[in-house]
């Protein structure tokens, strides 16, 4: 087994045991980056090797001194480029922030650094996390490491591809409507969106503030639990942060689903779902059933309303969140303009890509006077109804299982031409954000083309441990997932 296809926790153990040095771990990741990054484009920025090695040495010293004992100490990580990192450009994959250098780091990144993480670089994403393919990035698209003719999913496509390709040992993503779970599914890795309020949003450049949540993107469920345990914290700087009673997520890594009540929403298996995906997911459910879980079908009738509600709420918030990018204080400013308003107009016209502009316009429209009640308030009411429906479901079931996406990764260029179709691809992930629930995507098979399929498990708010237990149990039964060809390439 080569170094870079170890999981983060395995690597952490070897570093702690002194079998591998932090520098060696970083070197391994950097070598893999050298081998595959040119083709895959997972990163917007890979840090300078000296900078990484300097940090590695510091962390090594702290590990040697017994100051860092956590499972992730010394393990190299990649960070999605919408999380502020002090002194490291943070672009949201947008021209408008191409040169933005934050003066502070996001709380989730600080939590990782306190645990001894070494940052390798900032990963590519759909511009401002708006998209499902990582094709809307100003810095070029990221390719799926399983098949470079396909997209890695999005918006955290860079993080997902980097983990799958071994260009890092784990990564952070952010999920507003499926941006962690869908690319995880497309790239054959584990991705989790925690309950809203579990990971601080301080330092996460907002897309849809009421929906955004940072989460782990990892090689397996064990890593996922370890990373979540590290990044989750109550943060007084984030008013929507929640002080939880439990942060010991790794304690839920238990192989036991006996008596676990699983609900299968029929509405998640209807029209538009690729039969190969459906079969793989149902096969995985069978595995859990055989292990003693109780499986039952039920109706989740609000599903079709989730997409319009989501695009109204997320776009409305985005139109306001992104208004600060105006060329006045930082970032891109148009070179040639005439007066203040022309400067705003040209800067934003030139600085934002088409998908971002589309959502800003959509959001501005639904908030306009005369339309607010018909669109925004209606969407909020729909959101409340969706939450209500999930609340009822979770009175009966411990977890709900469905696919993470209706298909496997589409071909590059196939999605952007039809945005409405692209939006519909978010159908299984979006309601989770609207209801604030935790959700996890775990690889459960591959289609005929060899592209990974993900099973999505949902739990009630604050029940990540139930999710972790179910996902871990499934993973144990499934056995090791196929190794991505990009990783094999270097051996």
């Amino acid at each position, binding site marked *: 087994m080569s170094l870079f296809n170890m999981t983060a926790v395995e690597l952490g153990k070897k570093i702690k045991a002194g079998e591998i040095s932090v520098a060696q771990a970083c070197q391994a990741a950097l070598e893999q980056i050298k081998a595959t990054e040119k083709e895959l484009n997972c990163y917007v920025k890979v840090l300078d090797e000296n900078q990484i090695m300097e940090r590695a040495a510091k962390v090594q010293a702290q590990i040697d001194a017994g100051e860092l004992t956590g499972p992730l100490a010394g393990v190299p990580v990649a960070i999605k480029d919408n999380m502020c990192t002090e002194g490291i450009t*943070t672009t949201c994959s947008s021209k408008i922030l191409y040169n933005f250098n934050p003066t*502070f780091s996001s709380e989730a990144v600080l939590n990782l650094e306190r645990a001894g993480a070494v940052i390798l670089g900032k990963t590519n994403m759909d511009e401002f996390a708006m998209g499902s393919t990582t094709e809307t990035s100003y810095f070029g698209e990221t390719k799926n490491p399983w098949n470079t003719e396909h997209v890695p999913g999005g918006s955290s496509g860079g993080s997902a591809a980097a983990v799958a390709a071994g260009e890092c040992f784990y990564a952070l993503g952010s999920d507003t409507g499926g941006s962690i779970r869908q690319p995880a599914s497309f790239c054959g890795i584990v991705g989790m969106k925690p309950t809203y309020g579990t990971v601080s949003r301080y330092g996460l*450049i*907002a897309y849809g503030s009421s929906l955004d949540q940072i989460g782990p993107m990892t090689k397996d469920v064990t890593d996922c639990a370890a990373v979540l345990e590290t990044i989750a914290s109550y943060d007084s*700087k984030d008013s*929507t942060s929640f002080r939880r009673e439990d942060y010991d997520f790794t304690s839920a890594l238990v192989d036991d689903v006996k008596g676990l009540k699983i609900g299968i929403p029929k509405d998640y298996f209807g029209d538009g779902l690729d039969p190969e995906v459906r079969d793989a997911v149902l096969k995985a459910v069978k595995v859990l059933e055989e292990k003693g879980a109780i499986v039952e079908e039920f109706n989740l009738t609000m599903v079709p309303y989730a997409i319009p509600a989501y695009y109204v709420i997320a776009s409305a918030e985005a139109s306001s969140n992104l*208004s600060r990018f105006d060329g006045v*204080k930082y970032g891109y400013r148009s070179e040639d303009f005439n007066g203040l308003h022309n400067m705003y107009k040209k800067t934003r016209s030139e600085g934002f890509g088409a998908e971002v502009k589309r959502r800003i316009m959509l959001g501005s429209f639904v*908030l306009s006077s005369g339309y607010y009640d018909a669109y925004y308030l209606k969407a909020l009411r729909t959101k409340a109804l969706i939450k209500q429906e999930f609340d009822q479901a979770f009175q009966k079931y411990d977890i709900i299982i469905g696919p993470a996406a209706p298909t496997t990764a589409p071909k590059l260029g196939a999605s952007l031409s039809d945005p409405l179709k692209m939006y519909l691809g978010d159908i299984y992930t979006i309601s989770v954000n609207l209801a604030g629930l935790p959700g996890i995507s775990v690889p459960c098979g591959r289609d005929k083309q060899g592209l990974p399929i993900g099973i999505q498990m949902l739990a009630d708010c604050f029940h990540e441990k139930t999710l972790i237990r179910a996902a871990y149990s499934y993973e144990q039964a499934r056995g090791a997932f196929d190794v991505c060809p990009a990783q094999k390439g270097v051996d």
Partner: protein
Amino acid sequence: MAKNYETVIGLEVHVELATKTKIFCSCSTEFGGAPNTHTCPVCTGMPGSLPVLNKQVVEYAMAVGLATNCTITQNCKFDRKNYFYPDNPQNYQISQLYLPICRNGHVDIEVDGKEKAVRIHEIHMEEDAGKLIHDPVTDCSLVDFNRSGVPLIEIVSEPDMRSAEEVIAYLEKLRLIIQYLGASDCKLQEGSMRADVNLSVREYGSKEFGTRTEMKNLNSFKAIARAIEGETERQIDLLEEGKKVIQETRRWDDEEEYSYPMRSKEDAQDYRYFPDPDLVPVVISDEWLEDVRSRQPELRDDKMLRYEEEFGLPEYDIEILTGTKHLADLFEATNEIVKKPKEVSNWLMGETMRLVKEQDMDIDEISFSPKHLAALIQMIDKGEINRKVGKQVFEEVFKNDIEPAAYVEEHGLKSMNDEGALRATIEEIVAANPKSVEDYHAGKKKAIGFLVGQTMRATKGKADPGMVNQILKEILG
């Protein structure tokens, strides 16, 4: 014949709250720092920063709401008001539209002996913007974000006022209430209280409102009064000429005594208000509300009643003493020590106000310690200094807040209370002025005044005039 018109006025009053830190971050609110020194990622709107509400802002807003008879919204929210301007770092202002913290209040005013209630539509909390400074040298505009995020409340009245006098009475009343609460210093000149005037005119008896304009840039009560007069005239002239008043925002130019349009309707803004998703609803529990209510200080109306009952002060004194919180505080603190309300009142209304006028000061700028005035009053009381010396010492108390006893000692101003010594001096003066003695005995009682004067001069004013008079009369027989 010209028609008879009535002016209809409503006010939007912005008040900067006296919190130490800003509304959504822990930066200082102190006025006058070097540009952009009281700033952080939150109040400069940096990407990734998030607002956290300062509880004190809520408490001040509640206090003002309670004092103006409002209903407190126990589940209120913040909304974003979206507009682009460089002094607004996020290009949205966090304010309250849908669920403001206070609603449906009123303030009672009195003009020309007539009482009237001015209704308050709502009070909401919001953040102030930064300041734009144009640099003529580089022809660039610079932004100072020190003021960005300073907490404000906006008090919106109903269109209940009909004259400049009513507007001024309403503003005075609001100012006193807020000053008494300690929620703001309410200085119009420094901008910690700013009033926008919404004004329309209509024919007397009409039930419909006319088209209103909103006037900004009003920096003093006088400017407000002039602006109301000027704008009323402008609108009546328009109507008389058969023209229409346009609904717009106008800027009052106090030099020219005329208002000019700022924004016309064409670029009327749609602020696209929506609830700020970065902030959670502000839930005000019954306990919290009761706690703030129980901590409400005594407001002016109650204080006036108490001064009459407890101290028996004349109405005139009470009016002046309670006219500012600062003077009332000075009075109470001084009286607490000397327990002579009328005497304390006299010093504050007489000498203190004389000096305030002489120095062209604001009452709030009075800075002497109550204990020093108290000490002075006690020294006079004990006869340690006479009243005339007292006034001289008070000037020093007023200007430099000196410790009276030490000052009197240092400058040898103690009264001459040694009767023997004083008698000897007076005997010398009587002997040296036989003419006056003669006049006195001839019935010119005024002659004694000259002798008293001579004695005071000889004692450098330190003698107690009463004692001098008494001894003189004894000697002259």
